[in-house]
């Protein structure tokens, strides 16, 4: 996703002289081509995210389209007040980009796991929150956000995420992508869990369970219509995210269903906040550990279906 983002950004910068890039001293081996091609629109602010965000706001208020860039929690939580008071309050045209959302930097430990960013960014005013599902969506999201005049948070994976869309899907901020249709259950994923959602859907299909898969690339504003359709047309809504169970996709979906007075069963798969802290290892290892692998998440869905949906008393 990192490479898809940088490629899109270079193209945008080529055609739009207002595109400006500020890094918090990260992006080794990735940002150099941009810096070489557009030296007057590249700034390394150093390891100083609060100042980076303040400077980005100033640049945006003088007419530029500014992308700030760092990894994991650094561009969001370290400078939360600057995002809140500088960027969001002023509706400044700043796009906050984080590489390595979720557990992508798993081996670097909890300091480098981004597990609360979606929840916290989702509460901020005027901020669009986007977590693309694969490199194709990352490319489309980058272009859509550049065209949007206002603050946004773009949570990306790292490198090597599988491509889930053979053809570029229709992409609109705030509108979920129906990646696979199905009438029995719906799996809604955000960010790089899309591949797992599709794999689970394929597994369920072999057992005669037809799963719909939605890529909820935009968490705010969220696509309430797609969620309500899923809850009324299929018998279970599953949310799948590499994020805390508090405040992320699962919470957002539950909010929509509650506001619509819908009581359909919902299974939220993510990371319980108190279990997030101490494990260190590869992204693959950590996903398995938290029950988010294809096999573990699939088993939890089957179990939930057996216990709570198929055997549930009629209401």
């Amino acid at each position, binding site marked *: 996703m990192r490479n898809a983002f940088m490629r899109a950004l270079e193209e945008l910068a080529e055609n739009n002289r207002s595109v400006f890039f500020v*890094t918090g*001293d*990260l*992006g*080794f081996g990735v*940002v150099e081509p941009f810096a070489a091609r557009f030296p007057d629109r590249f700034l*390394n*602010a*150093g*390891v*100083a995210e609060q100042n980076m965000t303040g400077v980005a706001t100033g640049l945006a208020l003088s007419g530029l389209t500014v992308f700030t860039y760092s990894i994991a929690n650094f561009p969001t939580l370290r400078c939360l007040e600057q995002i809140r008071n500088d960027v969001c309050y002023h509706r400044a045209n700043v796009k906050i980009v984080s590489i390595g959302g979720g557990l992508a930097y798993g081996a670097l430990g909890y300091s480098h796991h981004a597990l609360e960013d979606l929840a916290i960014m989702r509460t901020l005013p005027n901020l669009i929150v986007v977590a693309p599902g694969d490199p194709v969506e990352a490319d489309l999201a980058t272009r859509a956000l550049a065209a949007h005049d206002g603050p946004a948070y773009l949570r990306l994976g790292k490198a090597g995420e599988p491509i889930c869309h053979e053809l570029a899907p229709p992409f609109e901020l705030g509108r979920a992508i129906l990646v696979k249709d199905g009438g029995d259950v719906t799996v809604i994923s955000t960010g790089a869990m899309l591949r797992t959602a599709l794999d689970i859907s394929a597994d369920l299909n072999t057992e005669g369970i037809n799963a719909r898969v939605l890529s909820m690339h935009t968490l705010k504003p969220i696509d309430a219509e797609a969620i309500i359709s899923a809850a009324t047309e299929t018998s279970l809504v599953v949310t799948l995210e590499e994020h805390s169970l508090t405040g992320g996709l699962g919470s957002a979906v539950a909010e929509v269903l509650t506001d619509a007075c819908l009581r359909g069963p919902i299974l939220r798969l993510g990371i319980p906040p108190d279990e997030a802290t101490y494990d260190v290892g590869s992204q693959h290892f950590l996903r398995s550990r938290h029950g988010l692998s294809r096999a573990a998440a699939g088993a939890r869905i089957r179990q939930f279906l057996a216990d709570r949906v198929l055997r549930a008393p009629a209401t």
Partner: protein
Amino acid sequence: MWEAALLASHHGVDNLIAIIDYNKLQSLDTVERTVRLEPLGDKWRAFGWEVREIDGHDHDELLKAFSAVPRLSGRPTCFVAHTVKGKGVPEMENRVEWHYRSPSADQIDWAKKNWGPRG
């Protein structure tokens, strides 16, 4: 960090030691070419710290320096320990890429053979 530096000297915390592993590299480029820190010792002095610049690779000098703290009663001490990232293997010294890379078993063997202690 500068907030902590202010608070410590304000309260005269003279049993506090800051050791700066000053290797002059950031994660994309040198410190000098990114956000300059020099004169680093003077900055700490201006914040009210007792400062000494030492060779971060010289164990004898480090031991001697750490044994003589506080250097000034009522002041925290800052050691600016000058270091070289990748010290001892010229092919790795001062190269940003080795912030990210881990040497393979072969590279470790090779480095030991070429640059390790003799005999």
